[in-house]
Structures are given as C-alpha cells and as structure tokens.
C-alpha cells in the first residue's frame, strides 16, 4: 500500500482558554482526501481543535495555544489568516444562510475574493450547488431567499457556499445535529462524494455517523487523544477500555 500523503500535521498542540486546558498535547496527522472523524463527549476539545485549524480561535480573547499545526508542511501561524480560512473551511452545526437569495449566498464568497463576471459567478454557483447535491432542488428558484429552504437544504447550501471559495480542507462541526434522518443521510452522502476532491474532517456526537462515513476515527476525551485508528478497527476492536465504553454507550 502506498503511504498516504499527509495534509495536516498537528504537533504537540495544546489549547487553553484562560486557565483551562481544552486540548492537551495533541499529536496527529490527517491524510489528503480522507474523511477524518473526531468523536468524543462534550468538552473533549473537538470543536476547539477545528477552530484552531483555521485560526477562528484567534478571535477568542482568552485563547492561548502551544505547539504547531502544519498544513502542506507550512506552519499556519505564518500563513495569511484570510487565505488560510479560505483554504480551510468550516461548516457549522446549525445551517445559517445569509439573509440573501440562494444565488447570492453562494456567490458571496467568490465576490468577496474579487470575481465580478456574471457568467463566471453563475458557473461557480451551479458547480457548488451540484457538488452539494442541491442543484436539482433549487435550480428554478435561485433568486428566492435562502431562508425559505428546509433545514437539510440550508445545510447543503452552506456546504455549497463553502465549495464556491474552493477550499482544500472542509471541516464539519456536527453538521447533522439539527437535521432529520433523511436530511442527515443526504449530507452524509455528500461527504462521501466530497472526499474525492477535498480533505474532510468531521466532528460528530453521533457515533454511528462516524462508523458510517469515517475513514479514520480519533477518540478525544477531556482534551486528550485516547485512541486513533481506522474506523473499522476502532469500532470492532478498540484498544483502550474508555474508547470501548464510549462506543458502547456506557458514558457520553
């Protein structure tokens, strides 16, 4: 088997909010074009880790960190923060369309990054919507307010919105926690398609979801990495008792 290409490398990484450590000395690599899932109970540091990867945490006044994160072998602290956030996108738990039309929601990012040509924008919007599997449902009403879409459609719209700025890594922070089972299935299907072209990090509270879509899964507990393995292995023969307990629902 060919050694997978490393996309993100996290080295001795710790996060503090004031006095509290949210993440303790984390070391792990994330490969290109995989779905890397992170599971763990509340307060295990999952979301904090995501927010550090694109430096959204920089906006939190009490945030402090130690260690480094490398993306394509470049330390993200040296990167231009706006272009980093463009390369490393995040989809939040609750879909939140901007108060604009469907078209403008998706064209927002590209416009902000300087694309003005109407035909170009139309192409980008269509491509984003197709990749997020939303095109067929909305192609006849692109100029209607995005707020009118259903929850599942809104979440896919948010995915399309992010695809339009051509990221390399897409992070999903519990993307289906507010969705019904059918919409969840749609989003999961989208994730599997997206990994062909993007590196995907999925944080989820839903253990079954990690089992369904993850290539590799990391289990975090109280800011510590307890176990990391191929998803199938982790779910069938967890090495650590705490992982096993969490997966079988003994706590969580």
């Amino acid at each position: 088997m060919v050694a997978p290409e490393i996309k993100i490398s996290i080295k001795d990484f710790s996060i503090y909010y004031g006095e509290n450590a949210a993440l303790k000395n984390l070391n792990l690599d994330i490969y290109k074009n995989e779905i890397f899932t992170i599971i763990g109970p509340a307060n295990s540091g999952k979301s904090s880790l995501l927010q550090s990867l694109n430096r959204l945490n920089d906006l939190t006044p009490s945030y402090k960190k130690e260690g480094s994160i490398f993306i394509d072998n470049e330390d993200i602290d040296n990167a231009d923060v706006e272009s980093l956030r463009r390369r490393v996108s995040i989809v939040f738990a609750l879909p939140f369309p901007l108060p604009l039309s469907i078209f403008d929601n998706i064209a927002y990012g590209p416009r902000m990054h300087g694309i003005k040509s109407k035909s170009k924008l139309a192409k980008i919007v269509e491509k984003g919507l197709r990749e997020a599997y939303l095109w067929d449902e909305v192609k006849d009403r692109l100029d209607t307010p995005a707020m009118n879409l259903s929850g599942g459609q809104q979440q896919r719209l948010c995915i399309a919105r992010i695809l339009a700025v051509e990221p390399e890594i897409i992070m999903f922070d519990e993307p289906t926690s507010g969705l019904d089972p059918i919409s969840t299935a749609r989003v999961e299907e989208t994730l599997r398609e997206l990994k062909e072209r993007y590196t995907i990090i999925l944080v989820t509270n839903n253990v079954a979801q990690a089992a369904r879509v993850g290539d590799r899964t990391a289990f975090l507990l109280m800011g510590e990495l307890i176990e990391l393995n191929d998803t199938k292995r982790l779910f069938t023969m967890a090495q650590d008792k705490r992982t096993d307990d969490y997966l079988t629902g003994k706590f969580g």
Partner: protein
Amino acid sequence: MDTHTKIRKIKEFIIERLIFLSGIMSIIIVALIFAFLLKEGLTLFWQVPLSDFIFARNWYPISDPPQFGILPLILGSVLVTAGAAVISVPIGIGSALFIAEIAPPKTKEIMKAGVELLAAIPSVVIGFIGMITLAPIIKSVFGLPTGLTALSGAITLAFMAMPTIVSIAEDAITAVPRQYREAAIAMGATKWQTTWRIVAYAARPGMLAAVMLGIGRVIGETMAVMMVTGNAALIPHSILQPVRTLTATVAAEMGETVQGGEHYAALFAIGIVLFIITFLINGAADLYLHKTKK
C-alpha cells in the same frame, strides 16, 4: 353568587377598564391634537386656497393684504433638514458601527454614555452654543454678512439627530445574529468585509429606521433652529443664506396673533403640515423597524 365574589368581579372589571384607558390614552391624545389642529387650521382655507398656501412664494402675514405662502418656510425646513442629514447620517452610522463592532467593551460603554448625554442636552443649550461659537466661525470662513445661516442650522441640528441615529442603528447592528459574522469570517472575509457586507447589510432596515427617526427629530426641532438660522422667510438660493423653518415660524409668531384670526389659523395650518410630515416619516421608520424584527 355571594357578595364577596361579586365585589371581586367588579374590581376586576374596573381595573381592566382603567388599564385599557391608560393603554389607549396616547392614541386618544394624538387624535385630539390632530382634531384641534384641523379645527383651528382649516378655517384658513376659507380665505386662502390650499395651493396658494403651499406654493405661493411670500410669507407676509402682517402686511395688508396678508400673504400666506409657506413655500419659503418649507424650503427652509427642507434645506436645514437635508443639510443635517448629510452631516449626521454618515457620522452616526459610522459611530454605530464602531460602537457595535469594533470598540473594546470599555470604550463601548464610555461612548454609549456619551451618546446618551448628547441626547440629554436641552436644545436651547445646543442652540446657544451654535449661536455664539458656530455662527461666528461660519461668518468668517465664508466671508458672510451674518453667520446665522441654513448651514449653521444644519450643523447644529446634526448634533441633535446623531444620538437618535447612533443608538437605534447600534441596536439594529447588535441584533444581527453572530452566526452571520462567523459564516463570513469562515469563508475568509476580513473584519471590514464582514462588517460592511454582512452585518451592515443585515442591519439595513434598522439603520434606515434610525435615519428616519433622526430626521423626524430634526424636522420637529424648534428652539435651536430659531436661534441659529437667522429667521428670514425668503426662498433660499444657497445654504449660506438665512432661512426660516416651519417650526420656528410658529414659535416666533404665535405670541403676536389675534386668536381666531387669519394669521392664527395660518400658523395652525403650518402645524398640520408638520404633523403630516412627521407622521409620514415615523410611519416609514416603523415599517422598516418591523421588517428588521421579522
């Protein structure tokens, strides 16, 4: 039904009615004011046709025969108000954006207190300061025979409109959901791009309402304008001329009229015009405010 229950029922009934009465009191008062204005003002139109009242170019209420053309007064009000809006809207919106989005918490508290204080200054004080400090400056800068001009009025009134604009616009900006900002920033927007294209965009209806209410305040303002605009009831050709506004006219002349006379009725007719203008502006602002809440 025993007496105890009966008394309780009656009490309930009385309290309910009293509260209802307090509730509709403001509406009753507005209706009464408008009715009174109409009663006193409309008699003018037995003598002076409406089109003459609004479009005639001369306001000579005590010459013989008197002429009641409020066009110069309307233009005076419009000029001063427009000037005040041009000054106060950009500064007010900018200041609201700064307070809501950029200022660190401490600065924010100080600035909000400052804005409230500005709102609390009596208009006669602002007018006085405008008259003794601003007017001489304008006089010497533009080389005018007098510093009491439409421009002085506009600048003075801009300070009075600003607190309204700032505090209402700031509320609207703060009410924009945090998630809009997060979404924009996560797509690689800079702070300014987020503030301008998302936050300001989402808060637009509220900011428009803020501007409307600020303008409403300026149109209705009397004391300060009377002190700094020079009060010449002429059709203004530039913002550097003295003007007289609708409000100042009523305030200045009401004491000299014969009750029930033509001049008296004309001043009430001006009151009707002012009432309609503020009603329209407040109505428009209300419409936008409701839009924001949806």
